[in-house]
């Protein structure tokens, strides 16, 4: 019964904080579907047999079950629909659900709409809302916001792996500069400048070792992705479809401090892992996806990726969790700029969360769309130049990440 899962199209609204031009969520979703219809004229909304909605927090949306507004607006009454919520990994989890739906053979054409409207509240209030996904009984009001928890994890990780502030600043500059080639990216639309390692090093302290330019952006944005069976892909978009060859989803503790001595991880990976430093759920879900997609040597078999760089430090930690480098090679892996557009495994050519933006429910969908564009040869059409086009890519990885590493998914996409 199990059938191959494909992606045949998708689009995002511009990501921004404040006005984007598509002020309503249902209006934004409609524009994303229309852009997809222009790319795939044979696709009709009538072909959909399931809609999955990807949205993190109704605190930002001031509306319970807001997916009902979008679904109704798209004219899809009668079609089954539900919402997936899984923190920062909401988009990845929605994609996981869509992939399973098609894989099962029960559905053939699944639309995924993701969004967040984080500019409904002030930035500092927004940070506190996100912090409510920490364990508020034990963590709210002590330090209080996610960058601080990430900084505490990264500080020890960087020392254990001999990675410096300058090393991770390279990653921050890379992603924001990649975003300068992407007209929908928030960094392009607002800050609009190329930056250097020194700019990152000199930006204001958020939480040591993380500075302002090491952090992603709070955003408003909507994204739409079209997931389907191979039969349907061959029918409506035979020249520009990609296959999802591997999927993986894993979990870790809500409080980062509870990862020490955790019997669940001791059992899988032996004592002393993941410490408070490694993203075990990333390693675990990557292993699942690699096995399914027959990836034996990740840095060789994977050509590029769109990964969850909420902080430059997390991108570095993710490299290691994905098996691209180990504790002895990670610092050199970063310094050799192997993940830049000139490197052998470019990461976040679309700008990532640091450059494109991070409207939580739309983020994992955005990463998947950028990965799809690369594999389907659509970058010259979607970006401003070929500077951010990966040369002749065959295989890409999409990574979506939640909490303090509490839920993480990985997907292997291949060109068809």
């Amino acid at each position, binding site marked *: 019964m199990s059938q191959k899962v494909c992606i045949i199209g998708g689009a995002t609204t511009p990501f921004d904080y404040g006005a984007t031009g598509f002020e309503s969520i249902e209006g934004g979703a409609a524009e994303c579907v229309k852009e997809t219809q222009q790319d795939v004229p044979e696709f009709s909304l009538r072909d959909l047999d399931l809609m999955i909605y990807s949205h993190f927090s109704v605190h930002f949306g001031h509306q319970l079950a807001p997916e009902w507004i979008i679904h109704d607006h798209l004219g899809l009454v009668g079609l089954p629909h539900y919402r997936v919520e899984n923190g920062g990994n909401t988009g990845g989890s929605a994609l996981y659900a869509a992939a399973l739906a098609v894989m099962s053979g029960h559905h053939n054409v699944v639309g995924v709409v993701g969004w967040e409207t984080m500019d409904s509240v002030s930035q500092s209030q927004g940070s506190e809302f996100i*912090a409510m996904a920490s364990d508020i009984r034990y963590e709210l009001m002590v*330090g*209080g916001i996610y960058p*601080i928890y990430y900084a505490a994890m990264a500080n020890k990780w960087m020392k254990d792996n001999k990675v410096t502030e300058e090393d991770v600043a390279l990653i921050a500059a890379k992603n924001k500069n990649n975003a300068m080639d992407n007209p929908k990216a928030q960094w392009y639309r607002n800050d609009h400048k190329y930056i250097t390692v020194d700019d990152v090093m000199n930006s204001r302290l*958020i939480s040591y070792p993380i500075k302002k330019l090491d952090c992603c952006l709070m955003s408003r944005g909507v994204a739409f992705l079209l997931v389907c069976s191979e039969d349907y892909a061959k029918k409506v978009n035979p020249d520009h479809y990609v296959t999802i060859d591997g999927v993986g989803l894993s979990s870790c503790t809500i409080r*980062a401090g509870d990862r020490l001595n955790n019997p669940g991880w001791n059992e899988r990976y032996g004592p002393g892992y993941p410490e408070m430093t490694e993203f075990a759920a990333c390693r675990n879900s990557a292993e699942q996806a690699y096995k399914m997609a027959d990836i034996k040597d990740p840095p060789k078999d994977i050509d590029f990726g769109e990964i969850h760089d909420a902080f430059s430090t997390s991108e570095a930690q993710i490299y290691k969790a994905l098996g691209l480098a180990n504790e002895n090679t990670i610092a050199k892996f970063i310094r050799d700029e192997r993940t830049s557009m000139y490197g052998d495994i470019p990461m976040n050519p679309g700008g990532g969360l640091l450059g494109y933006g991070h409207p939580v429910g739309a983020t994992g969908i955005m990463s998947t769309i950028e990965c799809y564009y690369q594999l389907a040869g659509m970058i010259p059409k979607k970006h401003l130049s070929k500077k951010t086009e990966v040369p002749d890519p065959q295989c890409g990885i999409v990574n979506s990440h939640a909490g303090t590493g509490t839920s993480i998914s990985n997907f292997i996409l291949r060109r068809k």
Partner: protein
Amino acid sequence: MMKSFLVTKNKDKFADPPKFNERKDYRPADVKETGLSFVGHEISEDRTVINQFLHYDQLYTIRHGWNSRFFIGLLDGKIMGTRCPKCGDSWVPVRTHCWNLNCKLQKTEWVEMPLTAKVHTWTIAGWSGRSSLKRLPIILVYASIGTSKVAMANELHGINPWDVEFGMPLKIVFKPKEQRVGAVIDFHFEPVDFWKPSPMNEEKQRIKDLVTPVYEWVKTLK
């Protein structure tokens, strides 16, 4: 009549509800539950776009249930942990059932922890949520308390931000009794009395340079 009869009947079947005989309300005078209300709007010059301001103010009741002894412990100046009688693992923050799958969700027992801890990792926050801005810079540490198998986040006071170290020994200090609210903000960490900072080095200087503007910025907050 029928309805109230049924309610009484159902109540007889279950355990007695707790009788709450100590109640404190320390919310600031300006915090009021007004529910949902439209409180304003703005319209663009060309009158094509409107933003509306919706105010929503809600009091939540966090029912701590089986975790309650930890939070009541804070009011009494104690750190209460839990311990599994089967495998011996213990925790702060507490678990009411063991995390070890072999223990088959064994109910744990309460243990009072010593007021000592050890730094596992740390960071210096120069930015935070709205309610914490005036306390910046904040040293946040994850520290293991007593025999706890896990680390707990809280602030470290009584030390320059650049002097914090991995593995440093800490004591737990509670706020004066009348200021406690039964939440983790009732206590913080401080270095133990015999602890002395190591000499200035390159990293400490870097941290000092990063936090200096934070001190200046906080002075400008009203």
